[in-house]
């Protein structure tokens, strides 16, 4: 028992845990923001998982062929937006079932990435190492004890994630566009009678979800590591949806929930690497459940208190 207490204390006093929390939260924040954009306008987007996956792959491919990770990011965004456009087209233009369309996109992304991986890199499992987006070093700050190790050297996408939260909050709650997004997600008929173009606003919401989920996906592959592995998104799109729900469909709420999940995930990684525990290798699977169990607990405890936009998931058909 003492060994466990010691191990947990070791995790919390190590700045690496906090840095890892930021890194683990970043893709979740991006994807959860994507969910917020889409669902605020009334389109459920479970395709986030697939968009992240294909963007992660696109990031590596772009970086591999050009040698420039920024082109990788551009390709990730392009692919992410394309996938979102597909979802938008099926669920807005053709009023299709949003869950089915989202599921199809996830499967599509798995198929495309799995196939192209072997085609382009000649082996299954993972790609070659490519150049990742350079980290931002805060000059002399790295020498500061504890905090230097925590935030001294981070991917610029981490900063972009937090900036996006602030940007999105202002956009959704303080601008005309945001008001229209919220109205379309809650009562599209009412918005329509006032001359708001329901379809355009919903397209905007879904495409923005593509942008943000793609940023999250790109961060996974070329944010630090510089490699894509099969099924790299590994359920993060769904965890992000849970974060969005727990955060009551608000950018800031979603961010806090994403940080909670990020911390759980970082905690589990760090705990496993504690030598004092003498863990068998197969226990990593048990540890890997921690964020998901946390999701279950938090979702069952919080979902009653958060409310989806009224018209969320309901196609708008003009008669």
């Amino acid at each position, binding site marked *: 028992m003492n060994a466990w207490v010691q191990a947990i204390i070791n995790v919390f006093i190590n700045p690496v845990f906090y840095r890892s929390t930021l890194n683990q939260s970043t893709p979740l924040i991006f994807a959860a923001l994507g969910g917020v954009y889409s669902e605020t306008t009334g389109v459920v987007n479970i395709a986030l998982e697939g968009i992240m996956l294909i963007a992660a792959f696109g990031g590596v491919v772009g970086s591999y062929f050009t040698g420039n990770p920024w082109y990788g990011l551009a390709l990730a965004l392009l692919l992410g937006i394309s996938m979102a456009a597909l979802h938008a087209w099926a669920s807005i233009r053709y009023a299709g079932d949003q869950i089915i369309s989202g599921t199809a996109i996830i499967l599509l992304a798995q198929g495309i990435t799995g196939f192209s991986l072997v085609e382009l890199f000649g082996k299954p499992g993972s790609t070659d190492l490519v150049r990742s987006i350079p980290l931002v070093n805060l000059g002399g700050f790295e020498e500061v004890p504890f905090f230097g190790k925590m935030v001294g050297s981070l991917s610029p996408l981490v900063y972009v994630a937090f900036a996006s939260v602030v940007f999105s909050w202002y956009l959704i709650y303080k601008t005309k566009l*945001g008001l229209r997004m919220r109205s379309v997600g809650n009562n599209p008929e009412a918005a329509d009678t*006032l001359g708001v173009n329901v379809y355009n606003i919903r397209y905007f919401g879904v495409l923005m979800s593509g942008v943000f989920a793609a940023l999250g996906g790109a961060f996974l592959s070329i944010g630090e590591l510089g490699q894509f592995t099969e099924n790299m998104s590994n359920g993060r799109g769904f965890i992000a949806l849970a974060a969005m729900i727990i955060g009551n469909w608000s950018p800031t709420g979603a961010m806090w929930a994403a940080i909670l999940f990020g911390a759980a995930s970082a905690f589990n990684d760090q705990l496993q690497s504690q030598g004092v525990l003498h863990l068998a290798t197969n226990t990593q699977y048990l540890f890997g459940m921690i964020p998901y169990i946390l999701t279950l607990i938090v979702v069952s405890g919080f979902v009653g208190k958060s409310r989806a936009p*009224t018209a969320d998931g309901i196609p708008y058909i003009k008669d």
Partner: protein
Amino acid sequence: MDNKNKKDYSQYAVVMEQIVKKFPGVLANDHVDLFVKRGEIHAIVGENGAGKTTLMSQLYGLINPNSGKIYINGVETRIKNPNDAIAAKIGMVHQHFMLVDRLSVVENVVLGMEPSHGPFFAIDVARKQIRELSEKFGLYVDPDAIIEDLPVGAQQRVEIIKVLYRGAEILILDEPTAVLTPQETDELFDVLRSLKAQGKTIILITHKLHEVMAVTDSVTVMRLGKVTGVVKTKDTNPKELARMMVGRDVLLRVEKDKAKVGDKILEIEKLEVNENRGLRAVNGVSFSVHKGEIVGIAGVAGNGQSELVEAITGLRKVESGKVIFKDVDITNFSPKKHREMGMGHIPEDRLKRGLVTAFPIYYNFILGKHDDPKFCDGSFLKIQDIKKFSEELVKEFDVRPPLINILGANLSGGNQQKVIIAREIAFEPDFLVVSQPTRGLDIGAIEFIHKTIISMRDKGIGVLLISMELEEIFSLSDRILVMYEGKIMGEVRPEETSTEEVGMMMTGHRLEDLRSQETQEV
């Protein structure tokens, strides 16, 4: 020739000329003409399905006519969509409010025409504009309240402000009083008069004739897609309007013989019931109902009537007191038990509790009786028997269209109500709780339902009638109880009282106080 074609419509705010609108299988508007003078309140009356809303939807650009012309202030105007209508200073308050529940009053009002500072929405400017409109027209509402927290009357004021904010000079209101309490209706009429006084033109779609008489200047009557009469309000009366609406003489108040009162069937003793938030809604109510009589409960909505009905029918827990039915204490028995003992219930919300709208009506006819051996052999439903049973009911109760496969949702309100009443009566109850049976129905349907309720009484069934419509209470009841804040204010007989006296009780005056005052004054 030229002169003959040139029409001078300049005195009219709205002229709709020879409007034709076809829907698949229906001629909804058949060469309809409408003339609305500037600054008047003009009613369009007609039964459900007469084409009133269709006509106004074309004026507001929600749908487009197959042929016909529209003139606004004497100028021919093409209105293809709501934006064109708004540009022509026309606004519409829909029957089902077009509000975003989760947004604030300000956000709802300005949506689509938001004032802004750069990219940002200028909520302070919007708030100020709304306050000004509120004060100018007596439309009081807190600009920062969230819509879903507001009562229906206030939500309607938001709708009107929304229309005025867009600069409307011509306001269309579609059945605005259908969802309002009598007080809210009076407040609405004050607002309409104030709008008229400030030069606005108002078109009021309704089928409530006393409202037409109370607030309008002229009336266009429609039936089956055609105009059947255009009159000045001061030159007409409800009887004449009803005849033009229905195409025959209509009894606005059903005739009935004296009740043949039998044994006591229901006894309520000091009943106490809570509402959803746990506050007391019914507070020590006692009364009884006998076979062969109709006991009416009058009152403003929300004074405990719904909770009382739910307690009597077993849908809500009784905190204390007793419900005695056929000499058996059935307090807190299950609703199923209530039904098995012979208690029928026509609920106030026909869509929520009366019907399964996604079911065809033959299933709706056997709701609650699905395990009756007549309709079920133990495991399987006897579909053929159910359908045969339904065919008979559809015929007997004149449900239109007479198709048993049609979904509950696709029937008109009046026909939905007929299905519910047919179901409840078909199981031969000894006692019937009837709550708001004619809410939102047109006069033809009301007449049918009233006649049916009277005929139930005459067969010896005890009826407890709950209604917000005083008209209905007076025309059906043998005894009237008035409820206010969960208590009974008094019991009167319709022939020995007046609407004024009942109205006073509805606002919290006890009958004995009223009557003792009277004797003092004499």
